[in-house]
């Protein structure tokens, strides 16, 4: 091997090593922050005052926006649970984005919908709205039947008719806890002039027992893939997002659940229809808009779980989802590239965006690439065993530990998984998540690069089984594929 090539490869390996050191340190820091936050949140429950928020006439109304494309299997149960949310004043707006199945029919039948011409603001252009309906039984339920335009477009259409000062954006298959709106509205109630958006923790519904759109028993999924995602979500939500929000640099409020100030959303132009990562891009745009105008603001994150969602259980579907996320990352970051490492944008520009670029978007380069090169160099004798082991520790081993730490945080804070076998299973899978799945995820990210290079767009299809059809986990914790 030529000396220049050798030097380059060794440098690359060192850079990868440093990459992991920084990532690990960062995660340890975030886990620590999450631990402290969680401790105070548990105690805060004793004096949170949600009852007061409920009965106060000052609590602002919330419009729940539900974009739906071919969600016939779940939509009725989902809407029923949304209507029953424990909140003093809210409306539910379902925007059927040109569904080709029986979504609208099922809603019409279940809720006695009647066509009513609803006035819409025209600030944000959308695909044509074919008809609007109001439920006779629940006048605060509105259904919009529109031509297909994508999730962003459906959300914008719903936004155009929302009547309350705040909107809660969710997925059609999100299952909200009864107090979800109260919990995310609480930070807004405390600081109404500052709070512009609130994100909430998403939990995984696969395997849970669901009744009438509510999770009544929390169980680990039977599917191995889903269990691994449970761990992933712990790490990313419990730890990462809590930490980011404390820095007021929360880079993404998940599309599965988020609360926003309606007029601000309208002012920034609603959702961008040209991206598959519309939740990420919107959050960046909000930060940018407010910091451009030097307006003091806060984007909060509520770590007490409020929302449950279904995750893919098949490798192919999951792969498509992760590739899509990768494309969305790129689209959002490139649209707002002026924020990158720009001190004008504070922690968002200086910390959050570089983090997304290096540790999420570019992660395959260092994790797959760095690992591969390290192993090769070791095999040809350029690197010592000690270095290899050290590399393996900071890359794979530490990942396992961090997942374990996230588990501990979850246990002390929320104790949603109540069986011993489930905890044992989670720990076992922590190993698999760190050694195996993570690399697979990086491979999907690489495919994401390919998609971007090719200019692939679009969402792909997702098989929706409906909640009542979800199998409960085997009582003995046996794996069922």
């Amino acid at each position, binding site marked *: 091997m030529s000396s220049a090539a050798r030097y380059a490869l060794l440098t690359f390996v060192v850079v990868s090593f440093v990459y992991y050191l920084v990532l690990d340190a960062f995660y340890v820091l975030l886990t620590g922050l999450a631990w402290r936050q969680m401790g105070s949140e548990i105690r805060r429950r004793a004096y949170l005052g949600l009852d007061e928020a409920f009965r106060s*006439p000052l609590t602002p109304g919330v419009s729940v926006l539900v974009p739906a494309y071919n969600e016939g299997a779940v939509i009725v149960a989902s809407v029923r649970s949304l209507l*029953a949310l424990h909140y003093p004043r809210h409306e539910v707006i379902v925007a059927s984005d040109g569904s080709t199945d029986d979504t609208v029919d099922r809603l019409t039948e279940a809720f006695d919908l009647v066509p009513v011409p609803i006035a819409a603001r025209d600030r944000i252009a959308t695909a044509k709205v074919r008809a609007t309906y109001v439920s006779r*039984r629940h006048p605060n339920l509105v259904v919009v039947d529109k031509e297909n335009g994508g999730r962003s477009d459906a959300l914008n259409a719903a936004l155009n008719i929302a009547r309350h000062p705040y909107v809660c954006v969710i997925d059609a298959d999100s299952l909200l806890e*009864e107090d979800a709106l109260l919990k995310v509205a609480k930070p807004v109630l405390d600081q109404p002039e500052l709070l512009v958006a609130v994100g909430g923790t998403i939990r995984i519904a696969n395997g849970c027992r669901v009744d009438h759109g509510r999770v009544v028993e929390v169980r680990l999924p039977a599917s191995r893939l889903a269990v691994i995602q449970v761990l992933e979500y712990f790490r990313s939500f419990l730890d990462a997002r809590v930490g980011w929000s404390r820095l007021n640099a929360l880079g993404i409020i998940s599309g599965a659940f988020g609360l926003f100030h309606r007029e601000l959303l309208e002012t920034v132009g609603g959702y961008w229809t040209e991206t598959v990562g519309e939740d990420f891009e919107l959050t960046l745009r909000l930060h940018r808009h407010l910091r451009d105008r030097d307006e003091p603001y806060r984007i909060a994150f509520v770590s007490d779980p409020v929302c449950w969602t279904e995750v893919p259980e098949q490798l192919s579907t999951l792969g498509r989802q992760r590739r899509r996320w990768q494309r969305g990352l790129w689209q959002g970051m490139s649209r707002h590239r002026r924020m990158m490492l720009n001190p004008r944008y504070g922690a968002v520009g200086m910390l959050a965006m570089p983090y997304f670029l290096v540790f999420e978007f570019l992660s395959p380069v260092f994790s797959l690439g760095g690992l591969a090169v390290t192993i090769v160099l070791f095999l040809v004798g350029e690197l010592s065993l000690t270095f290899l082991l050290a590399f393996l520790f900071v890359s794979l081993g530490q990942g396992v530990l961090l997942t374990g730490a996230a588990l501990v945080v979850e246990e002390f804070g929320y104790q949603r998984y109540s069986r011993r076998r489930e905890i044992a299973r989670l720990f076992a899978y922590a190993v698999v998540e760190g050694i195996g799945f993570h690399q697979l995820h990086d491979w999907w990210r690489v495919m994401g690069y390919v998609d971007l290079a090719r200019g692939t767009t679009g969402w792909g299809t997702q098989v929706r089984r409906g909640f009542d059809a979800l199998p409960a986990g085997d009582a003995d914790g046996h794996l069922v594929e």
Partner: protein
Amino acid sequence: MSDSDAPGPAPEGGERPVVLAADDDTDVLELVTFRLERSGYTVLQAHDGEEAWALAREVKPDLAVLDVMMPKLDGFELTRRIRADEATRRIPIILLTARAQDPDVQEGFDAGADDYLRKPFSPQELRSRVQAILGRR
């Protein structure tokens, strides 16, 4: 006049009137059940709107005390159903709820409730309203 929960005058036929109490808040449900039973009524409990609806149709209680914010079927909708069904139409309904803004009260009466009691509530007041309604029959 004593504030105690001494039973009121026995209704015609000497049978204990049956009251259906529905609330997902178990504290409230226990309180209402305990106090009304002490006053001489038989109380059937329901923890959500659908359970209440099933009981209402099956048993046809002499009175229903319903919470509004219940899962599965809220109190207003339940009231409407009770009024719409021939078999249950005549059951008197008292709504007992924390939702006490004027539009809520109006909606309650529009749905067909006979009375509306706000939470926090006074069990003595509940008892006298129950007696007033059942005494009329």
